[in-house]
């Protein structure tokens, strides 16, 4: 059985009128992440199949489908940072927060994630907390930073 819909599934005539990536970026800016209810609404409004929206939302690493933590620590794992031992920094944060990369602490305060390059290669190893970049990190500096966040 084909499901009945109130609107036909078709793209708008002029594809330039809507840009799915831009629409999703706007939604994410509003709530900090993409809510499934919002995506369903977008699908109905624009007549784009939900699978397509889900496909785009999961393809790009910028889009989050879960509610973000208050602080996200992004440890840069770009080449320059790797050479300057960013892996040690990640391990240190994992140990001190008792979480693995990609996870959030139980109180939803801090999330640990990696990012491929934030372009602060000359300041390697670099980490980014929300939008602020910290360069030339050492274990001691990270320790201090985590204490501050808490």
């Amino acid at each position, binding site marked *: 059985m084909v499901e009945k819909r109130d609107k036909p599934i078709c793209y708008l005539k002029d594809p330039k009128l809507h840009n799915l990536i831009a629409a999703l970026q706007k939604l994410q800016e509003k709530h900090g992440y993409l809510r499934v209810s919002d995506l369903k609404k977008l699908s109905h409004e624009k007549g784009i199949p939900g699978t397509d929206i889900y496909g785009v939302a999961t393809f790009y690493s910028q889009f989050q489908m879960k509610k973000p933590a208050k602080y996200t620590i992004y440890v840069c794992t770009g*080449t320059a940072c790797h050479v300057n031992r960013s892996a040690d920094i990640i391990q240190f944060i994992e*140990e001190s927060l008792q979480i693995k990369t990609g996870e959030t602490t139980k109180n939803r305060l801090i999330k640990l994630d990696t990012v491929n390059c934030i372009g602060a290669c000359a300041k390697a190893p670099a980490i980014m907390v929300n939008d602020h970049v910290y*360069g030339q990190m050492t274990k001691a500096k990270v320790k201090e930073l985590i204490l501050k966040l808490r």
Partner: protein
Amino acid sequence: MIDVINAKKELDSDRISVGVGTCGLSAGAGPVYDALKKANLKIPVEKVGCSGMCYNEPIVTVVKSGKQSIYGLVTEDKVGTLIDCIKSGRVCKELLVGTSLDKIPYYKKQKRIVMKNCGFIDPLNIAQYMSQGGYGALKKAIELGQDGVLKEVEASGLRGRGGAGFPTARKWGFIAHVKGKKYLVANGDEGDPGAFMNRTLMESDPFKILEGMAIGAIATDCDEGFIYTRAEYPLAIKTLEQAICLARKHGFLGNNILGTKYNFDVSIRKGAGAFVCGEETALIHSIEGKRGNPSPRPPYPATKGVYGKPTSVNNIGTWGHVVAVLKYGAKQFRKVGTKKTPGTKVICLAGKINRAGIAEVPIGTTIKDIVYSIGGGMPKGTTFKAALTGGPAGGCVPKTKLNTRLDYEEMQKLGSIMGSGGIVVISNESCIVDIARYFMNFTQEESCGKCTPCREGTKRLLEMLERITRGEKVEILALRQLAEFVRDNSLCGLGQNAPNPILSTLRYFEKEYIEHINKHKCKSGVCKDLITYFITDKCIGCGMCAKNCPVATISGIPKERYFIHQEKCIKCGTCYGVCPVKAIIKK
């Protein structure tokens, strides 16, 4: 009206400029700027882009009575000293880097053509841009007309700066005489870790990119363009957006550019974090708002690109060079660089090196010059092992090949690529197998999953490398064969180039691979499973190691030599870091 004459005067007279690119801001240029602004110095304080000396950020340049002094590492706590010096009219010796860019060793072997304005003018001041010869190239292009521009660019021998080195004039030629709607795209999706030259140009000299695109529009008779860049570059996006508005306002974009028949407008498209989108077919899908999956070529973008229309995709760097070609003329442009590849290349230097940053060098400069003359050589206590070029799609240049010239063909002969121009230097403290594993991990994660050789192949290659880093048995032959298979059978550039780091490191450092497999040894002490920490008799028995050990596997009596109980050791290296007398060694 744009007051160019006044802008020129402004630039030549007394001024203080603070570099506020992304790297400057991360080093703390924001508070420095505020402090200088508040200090009532009677000299205008301006925000400029990045001059490329990232290792010296934040940078403040003071011009007073015709004398220039460039100050580096002016952090928030040091800005007070600088303000005192400026007020009393002295030169602040402790912060001084040089009195002009040419006199600083970092710039001696450089040739700044595209980067000339970066760090000198206010990125969003169109009058300052014009006072430095900006938009002169566009005027010249209008005089020359479509065929004239095409001829000039062809005569200059300009090749794409994105990595492949395809002749720009030929790329434009494919779409130049096709009738109907077509698009120009500036590729600023710099997903390549270790490369940030596009970001710097977008942040520090946005009008140059817009001017280059407008020239391209004349050459290809096109009226719409896109700049595609990463959402991770918020400052670059903001700067470009404002620059586009200004250019429209002053008639350099929009309908009837400078009162002529040419129409051209640009809009920005933000990527959302996917390395594969640097590949042109994937990028085109992403511009349309779809998943960034590459598609097989042909059809090439020149026949079927954005929204199915003929499209020319050029790198941000290429658009900058287009301006230089028109401004100086093809003949003058050819004087720099090699015969086959004239011009310069903007490179990013990073890794284990004394002076990391952005440099613009004539093509054909040796890697040795780049690492030692510009980069200032290796930090104390380390020796050069290799230079990684081209990022995750590139390869390595070992010590024996340091005299290689930076050029598309020369790099290819080494099994590497020039790529976007990122050069990461590694020292004896880095393990070559670990580097290959790192790059493989990157491409494996970024593989879009569309074609099997890339999706499955990169995963298996990564597994093999992981086994080697654990000292397990892997046939080098099998590794090489699979790498070659992935290279030959993948759909797009990402998969085709993914095995490059393995093949190129195998070529020069096979011994190190074999050492891992047969002798279970990692000379550099990076691969955790192959090293053991050991306390020597230098130990003074302070107990720092035992106190800091996260698994409490170090014990001993105070003031005597401590011991590590290997069976519980997780090899985190904490003890190694905290030991005050360096009594702990890696074996």
